[in-house]
């Protein structure tokens, strides 16, 4: 198999299912290392297959809960602060703490922080390189 000729859909599906003989799988891997299109196809197939498996859907749900643990905790403690009036302030503080952690841990905020940092670095760099 030449590296430039992409394998058929059948071969790719057999590779991802792990039923190909070792030598053919090696050839496919050699092709995948050089072909971005097939690599993307394999990667997408893997993620769709993972999502569509009903048994794996539960583990995905678990992962989602783990990812948003702080948000869920914040909502629960906010609710609890209204139920248990005696500990209103304590629950409110916990809500604030968990809420801030959730906000700072989110991807959007992290990208903003990295953008801010790079801009700050660029500014200092241009200031240092000024001729006058």
């Amino acid at each position: 198999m030449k590296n430039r000729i992409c394998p058929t859909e059948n071969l790719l599906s057999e590779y991802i299912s792990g039923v190909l003989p070792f030598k053919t799988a090696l050839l496919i891997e050699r092709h995948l290392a050089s072909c971005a299109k097939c690599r993307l196809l394999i990667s997408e197939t893997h993620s769709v297959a993972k999502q569509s498996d009903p048994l794996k859907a539960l583990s995905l749900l678990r992962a989602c809960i783990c990812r948003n643990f702080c948000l869920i905790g914040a909502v629960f403690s906010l609710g609890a602060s209204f139920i248990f009036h005696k500990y209103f302030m304590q629950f409110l503080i916990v809500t604030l703490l968990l809420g801030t952690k959730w906000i700072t841990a989110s991807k959007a905020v992290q990208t903003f922080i990295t953008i801010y940092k790079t801009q700050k670095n660029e500014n200092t760099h241009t200031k240092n390189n000024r001729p006058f």
Partner: protein
Amino acid sequence: MKNQIYVDFKSMKLYTISVMDIQTLLTECINRNQNAWASFVNIHNRLIAKSVNHKLNQLGLKFTKSERQDIVQEIFFRIWEKNRLKDIQNISCLENWLIIISLNITSNYCKEKTYRNARNTVSLDNAIHFNRKQNTLIKTLAADLFNTESSLNARELRVIMSQAISKLEHRQQLVLKFYFYNNKKYKEIAEIMRIPKGTVATLINRAQKNMKKILRKYI
């Protein structure tokens, strides 16, 4: 006998079909039995719809529900028309084969309909879809448009990096590309390549060390 689990979301029932049943269903479909084809469509409709949605989301295209349904029907039509089920040699690969076929057909469908071009001619004042409220396209592009030096440097760096990666052993290359270019986790790479997670980590570690050796003259 190995069973496969299917969920019928209309009736919310979980049911299993033995591999033998799927094999007979497939042979009936190849022999152009319309009832068998109807049940085949019923079983795999959701999987194909999911693949179509995944591809459209990847391409950043927003299609209406009916348009998405059109693509799903197009996929089934093409499979039926050319009797492509004949190509399947191993029954256990059926689902993966269907996903690959639907991803390819969706991508071709988008190209044919020139949605890709429409996406490229978007107004600069439009909001970017992942951060709708604040960032417009012109604000984001501005940094790259007017900073030619850094963009040229980035391009040069990309060429150097790709040359360095091509010098690695092909398995290291593949693992490295899955990890950095396709944003796959160790576990996912291990699942795709059917190797232990530790081997993936070792391959990436070795690849990084080799890359350091190759790129030493630039550091």
